[in-house]
């Protein structure tokens, strides 16, 4: 599967050993990282692009509500119905009113569908990544701090979850579990399908991160401040989350940033296999799995959704890399 591709996990693990760099006089590690990040042009550009995409994701539903955008409005007169309903004209129906052309078959505006699609795709990826990181952090901290049988059980759960073939599980559970979700009262149709994606991506995503966090915690556990907390009789939960958590923000941030694009890709891949949110609700994935069939008749529509999806994935990946490099000076050339 495209998510948590090889280089993400590997990269995280290598950075994990070095997350808390030795402080240089006068500047906190955080400040140093920030300086390093700012100095890197590529990272700053990718940050800008990511922020732009996030901005689009936020305003698109508003613009749709205000009817500035009409991602659902069909435009049959602009289509060549007898010729497979591809847009009339040479460039996939590009015009001032439709800067990226029209969707063959329906004549809906491609730009507005992609922008609203970004909202849905990013929302799914974001919620799923938050859940992944939250679960991974919580269970990783608990396992690492407690040790003993709690650690052993969490370790086995992690092993077990990782032993399942992830992509196949996401695919083959989709129909039965979506129905089950609907029976549990989740609104039918796309809402249930989206919920399924979010939950199941997270369920299969957290264990890798929990392992990383556990490793971090094990090394932190020996530090003075944790022992001090023990001595002062701090409760277990306080140690888990008041003492440990602030020291884990670097791997959390990096992992989160790299998980986002992986989940955006995963949504697209699963859409192609018929899993996930379906039209008319646009997502980057379902738009792309429709557009791949138009290589012969509408090249604009064939390439535009693919390029937009790739741009989202690349910018998030570059941002994640930049963050990792900034937070981990040793990997910095």
């Amino acid at each position, binding site marked *: 599967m495209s998510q948590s591709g*090889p280089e993400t996990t590997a990269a995280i693990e290598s950075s994990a050993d070095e997350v808390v760099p030795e402080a240089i006089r006068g500047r906190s590690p955080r400040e140093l990282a920030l300086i390093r990040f700012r100095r890197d042009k590529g990272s700053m550009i990718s940050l800008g692009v990511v922020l732009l995409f996030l901005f689009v994701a936020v305003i698109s539903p508003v613009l749709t509500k205000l009817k500035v955008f009409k991602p659902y409005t069909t435009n049959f007169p602009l289509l060549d119905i007898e010729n497979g309903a591809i847009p009339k004209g040479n460039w996939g129906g590009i015009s001032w009113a439709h800067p990226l052309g029209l969707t063959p078959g329906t004549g809906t505006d491609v730009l507005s569908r992609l922008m609203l699609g970004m909202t849905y795709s990013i929302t799914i990826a974001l919620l799923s990544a938050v859940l992944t990181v939250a679960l991974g952090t919580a269970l990783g901290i608990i396992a690492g701090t407690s040790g003993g049988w709690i650690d052993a059980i969490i370790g086995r759960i992690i*092993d077990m979850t990782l032993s399942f073939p992830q992509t*196949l599980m996401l695919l083959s559970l989709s129909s*039965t579990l979506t*129905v*089950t979700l609907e029976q549990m009262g989740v609104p039918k149709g796309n809402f249930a399908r989206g919920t399924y994606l979010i939950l199941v991506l997270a369920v299969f995503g957290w264990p890798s991160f929990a392992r990383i966090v556990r490793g971090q915690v094990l090394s932190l556990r020996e530090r003075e401040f944790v022992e001090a907390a023990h001595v002062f009789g701090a409760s277990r939960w306080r140690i888990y989350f008041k003492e440990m958590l602030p020291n884990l923000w670097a791997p959390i941030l990096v992992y989160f940033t790299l998980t986002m694009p992986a989940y955006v890709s995963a949504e697209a*891949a699963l859409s192609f*296999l018929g899993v996930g949110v379906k039209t008319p609700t646009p997502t980057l994935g379902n738009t792309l799995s429709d557009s791949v069939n138009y290589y012969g008749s509408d090249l604009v529509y064939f390439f535009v959704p693919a390029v937009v*999806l790739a741009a989202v994935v690349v910018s998030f990946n570059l941002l994640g890399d930049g963050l990792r490099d900034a937070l981990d000076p040793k990997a910095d050339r």
Partner: protein
Amino acid sequence: MFAYAVRRILIGLAMLVVMTLITFLLFMNNTTASVLASCGKNCQPEQKAIIAKTLGYDDPVYVQWGKFLKGVVAGRNFPDDPALVADHPELVAHCPAPCLGYSFKNSNFVWDVMKDAMWVSISIAVVAFAIWIIIGVLLGIIAALKRGTWIDKVIVGVTLVIFAFPTFFIGQLLYVFLAIKTGWFAIPSYTPIADGGVFTWLGGVILPAITLAVFYMAGYVRMTRAFVLETSTEDYIRTAQAKGLSARAVIGKHTFRAALTPIVTMAGMDLALVLGGAPITESVFNFNGLGKLAVTATREFDLPINIGIVVFLSAFVILANVVVDIAYAFIDPRVSVK
């Protein structure tokens, strides 16, 4: 030492059992669609009841799970009907242990269906693996050597961008333009080596293999590049350079060797992953591997196939972990003490 091995094996077995139970609970929580998919055009309630019974869904999930485990250990009959065994033994399929079930959509044992599919997946995986390792590592080394130049930027940039396009997009592009439109490649299809020789086999799997390879390649380029850069700053490399060894010798003998270990580790994990089937690539190119089998089974609600594939692949991972752990313990006795 011995005690450790035994304990590790027992834990492994317990995990296997729990894993199959979880799989059953997940897949069997809703069998309505599966019954309907087998029912045909005139599906009346009586028909549904008969089919549910034939498929074995009329039992509670834990009973079905128990029968499944029994099948794995001792084999089982399909249909499981003693009267039929007595009257018409020719109608009853005996599935020998280890039995993973019977697919009524394939009219065949799950294992027999999977066995054929496995070779297809293995073929794509092995060729893809060769492509991405060779080209990925080469490009990574070149990028590292040319660090900072446009060559470096192009290599890293292009692989990163290709990686960002979904597999089905790349696959469709290759299929349509390289095989159909231009005819440069044969229409991808799987011919076993035994039937058509190595070249026909390779010619048939090359496009799906490339599709799968470009997805993994980016990771290897970046990793090789990073490790080569990292190790080239290590003291012993500098020493070698100071000794007056040529750049080529340093890279070949020292840098590359040091970078190799983590790459091999990662390659092993990725290979294991793609051996389990590549649903998207296999679907695009119509290769009947484990991945496409799962896609079809999902579409047709062929639950026994879905369960069979999941159980088989998970069991493989769990057992491999046990073997690796015990092997480590033999090599390094400190492990078992811990």
